[in-house]
């Protein structure tokens, strides 16, 4: 079991990672809006928090290194240094080193580079004009913290009366009040008196709470805000007042401290936030615990389905009543547990600003990243696996898609190119888009290269989409030379593999000269969905409820009226339908009256013809396993209450598949050639019999 110290360190790491993400975003914004004081303050506070908390939790090297950057941004804040691209790049580079220092000891990351740290600090000092001091000069020493910011402030020294009373939970988050005092002492001359008035009798004393309060007088040239910054990460967990003391500096520090002690606390005029009712609105929970929780809910849903089945068979009103109640509660529990795992994609999108910034610099291109739909939520498991594919898509766009400056100028394009990231919901899926306004994909070059590599025959009839899909083949690249960024033909293969593993699909659209758009269609969740259970012969299927619209009957007379065509007339609108019996090669006689489940897809409305509709069900998605991974029309399987396996259909893919087969003049999938298109990629057998699963 981890010790408290380890837990605090881990908590600090988690918080610091978030702060680093925010710092990166703020720096990149600052790069565009150099005069934005709020952004400067945001960067300063972030650095200050990392430094202060880092020191407190034993990350002395990290704290010392960060201190120098904090000093630089303090200079910016005070108008003595201007923001410029060099400072931004240096700070971004420094964030990488801080990140590495942070992960040291946590495993899995490359350690910080001392030479790079020293170089960054030397450059920062050159920019700020502040001389190196002591062992902190190399970024690895511990004495950098001892540097007194007041020395750099240069203003008049004045006295401040400070009262600091830790709240009940201040120490529980790992904060040490004594270390805060030590940091305060770095700002100037400090006179301190500890008050023990609130310490209760030993028996009543909570050993994990700090009852001591401090009255201090600080003589310093720094501002009230700079003093408050010392307490920046505990100010919601303490009583803090900072008041200017009248009278000339340097006179009677001890008297002023004593006077401050004698003053009634109600006159302190400071913040008193800790004694408000507990209004904490969020908790930090390890992802593994959440995954375990959702797994258990999944098991509960399966057991509940068995209970419902049992209740239906027993015909016992009491059991039926209990079963219905459990079903209702399970449904609520499932919905709540799924909501807990839903996260906005914003953080994932935002972190690519840095990638675009760095790549643009390295490639000598002007590129801006625009983001749309950052608040779109999807399952944490899906989000966790999205970073790599998006990174490869962006790198590919930046390197191959976006033209060099001179080419863009010659084509009359805006000098600054755009990479656009977008997210939006579509039924039970989420669509993630990566588009650019570059030169587009040269379909002919892709085809030639594919022929050259033996991926397709020279005379193979390929649609444009099928041609574009070739770029996702392993080792495929049309790049004439391999660069640091791309060209080895690995990245797009990674994209395909990752999207496959998420049961997603990739669509590529491109126009020569105007750009490329790649859309990833991913399931909202990988765990449990609301489904509609349908039956065909002895087989069961689940359609995601989010896609289904309504159910209508299909009689023999209807079929005759359509002259055998697979279309139905729904209140005057012609809707094409797909017979699941035929699509899955289920060889049982069809009933006199069948049911058409109407579903909404990106390509419009489609009907799925089934024998019977059995009702809605909560569906715990189980992977089909490696062997059936490439059966794209099926997104998984689920175990019904009676122990039977039902396949979960992907209506979108099913509709696309039917269109493709129809185009090829096939009513069944038997013998369909393995398509180079992503949609049908790797498809082994169209007529996968349900009984085989």
């Amino acid at each position, binding site marked *: 079991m981890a*010790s*408290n*110290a380890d837990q605090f360190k881990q908590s600090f790491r988690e918080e610091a990672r978030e702060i680093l993400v925010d710092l990166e975003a703020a720096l990149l914004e600052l790069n565009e809006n150099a005069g934005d004081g709020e952004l400067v303050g945001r960067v300063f506070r972030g650095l200050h928090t990392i430094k202060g908390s880092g020191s407190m939790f034993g990350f002395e090297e990290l704290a010392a290194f960060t201190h120098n950057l904090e000093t630089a941004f303090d200079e910016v804040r005070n108008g003595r240094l201007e923001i410029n691209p060099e400072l931004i790049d240096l700070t971004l580079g420094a964030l990488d080193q801080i990140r590495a220092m942070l992960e040291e000891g946590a495993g899995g990351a490359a350690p910080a580079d001392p030479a790079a740290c020293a170089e960054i600090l030397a450059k920062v000092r050159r920019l700020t004009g502040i001389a190196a001091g002591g062992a902190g000069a190399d970024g690895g020493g511990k004495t950098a913290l001892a540097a007194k910011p007041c020395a750099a402030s240069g203003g008049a020294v004045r006295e401040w009366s400070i009262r600091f009373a*830790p709240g009940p939970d201040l*120490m*529980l988050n790992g904060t*040490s*009040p*004594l270390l805060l*005092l*030590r940091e305060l*002492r770095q700002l100037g001359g400090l006179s*301190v*008196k*500890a008050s*023990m008035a609130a*310490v*209760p*009798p*030993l*028996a009543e*004393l909570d*050993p*994990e*709470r*700090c*009852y*001591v309060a*401090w*009255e*201090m007088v600080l003589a310093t040239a720094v501002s009230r805000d700079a003093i408050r910054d010392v307490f920046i990460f505990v100010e919601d967990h303490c009583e803090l007042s900072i008041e200017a003391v009248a009278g000339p500096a340097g006179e009677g520090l001890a008297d002023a401290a004593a006077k401050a002690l004698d003053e009634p606390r109600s006159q302190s005029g400071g913040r008193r936030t800790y004694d408000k009712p507990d209004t904490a609105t969020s908790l930090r929970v390890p992802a593994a615990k959440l995954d375990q929780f959702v797994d258990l809910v999944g098991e509960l849903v399966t057991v509940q389905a068995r209970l419902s089945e049992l209740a239906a068979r027993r015909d016992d009103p009491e059991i039926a009543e209990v079963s219905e109640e459990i079903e209702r509660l399970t449904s609520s529990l499932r919905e709540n547990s799924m909501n807990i795992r839903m996260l906005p994609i914003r953080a994932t999108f935002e972190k690519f600003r840095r990638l675009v910034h760095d790549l643009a610099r390295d490639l000598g291109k002007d590129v801006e990243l625009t983001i749309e739909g950052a608040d779109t939520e999807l399952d944490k498991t899906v989000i966790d696996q999205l970073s790599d594919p998006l990174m490869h898509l962006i790198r590919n766009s930046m390197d191959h898609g976006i033209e060099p400056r001179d080419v863009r100028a010659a084509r009359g394009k805006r000098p600054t190119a755009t990479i656009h990231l977008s997210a939006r919901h579509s039924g039970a899926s989420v669509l993630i888009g990566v588009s650019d306004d570059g030169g587009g994909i040269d379909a002919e070059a892709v085809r030639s290269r594919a022929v050259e590599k033996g991926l397709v025959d020279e005379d193979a009839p390929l649609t444009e989409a099928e041609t574009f899909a070739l770029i996702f083949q392993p080792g495929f690249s049309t790049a004439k030379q391999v660069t640091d960024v791309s060209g080895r033909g690995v990245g797009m293969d990674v994209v395909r593999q990752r999207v496959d593993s998420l049961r997603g699909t990739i669509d590529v659209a491109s126009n020569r000269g105007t750009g490329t758009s790649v859309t990833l269609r991913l399931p909202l969740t990988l765990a449990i969905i609301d489904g509609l259970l349908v039956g065909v012969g002895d087989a069961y299927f689940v359609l995601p409820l989010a896609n289904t619209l309504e159910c209508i009957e299909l009689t023999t007379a209807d079929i005759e009226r359509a002259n055998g065509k697979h279309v139905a007339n729904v209140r005057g609108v012609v809707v094409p339908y797909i017979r699941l019996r035929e699509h899955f090669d289920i060889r049982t006689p069809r009933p006199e009256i069948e049911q058409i489940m109407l579903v909404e897809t990106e390509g419009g409305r489609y009907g799925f013809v089934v024998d019977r509709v059995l009702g809605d069900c909560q569906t715990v998605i189980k992977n089909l396993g490696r062997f059936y991974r490439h059966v794209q029309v099926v997104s998984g399987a689920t175990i019904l209450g009676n122990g039977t396996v039902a396949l979960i259909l992907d209506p979108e893919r099913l509709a696309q598949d039917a269109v493709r087969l129809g185009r090829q003049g096939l009513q069944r999938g038997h013998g369909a050639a393995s398509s180079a298109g992503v949609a049908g990629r790797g498809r082994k057998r169209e007529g996968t019999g349900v009984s085989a699963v």
Partner: protein
Amino acid sequence: MGINLDEGEALSTVILCETVDISSAAELKALLVKALGSGKEVRVSLEGEAYLDATAIQLIWAAEREARSGGVGFALAGPVPERISAALLDAGFDRFPAAECAR
């Protein structure tokens, strides 16, 4: 072991060998309560790499107050090490059990 209780015939000595902070404050409290409950004089010994954070300081302070009100002897076993004395002064604790921290 960071905190120990040595129960002699006439003295109960709480020995602090390492850092005492929030992670070991509950243990310190239990030993101080036990030492005070023994009816013997209490000593607190700061040895080796002992370092006290605010939770430890307030516990020892509260224990001393309780001992005094109950007429039980309570003192540090020896002078406060210079390092700890300086840290206590820096943190505004100008008085510590049985030893005035020299300014």
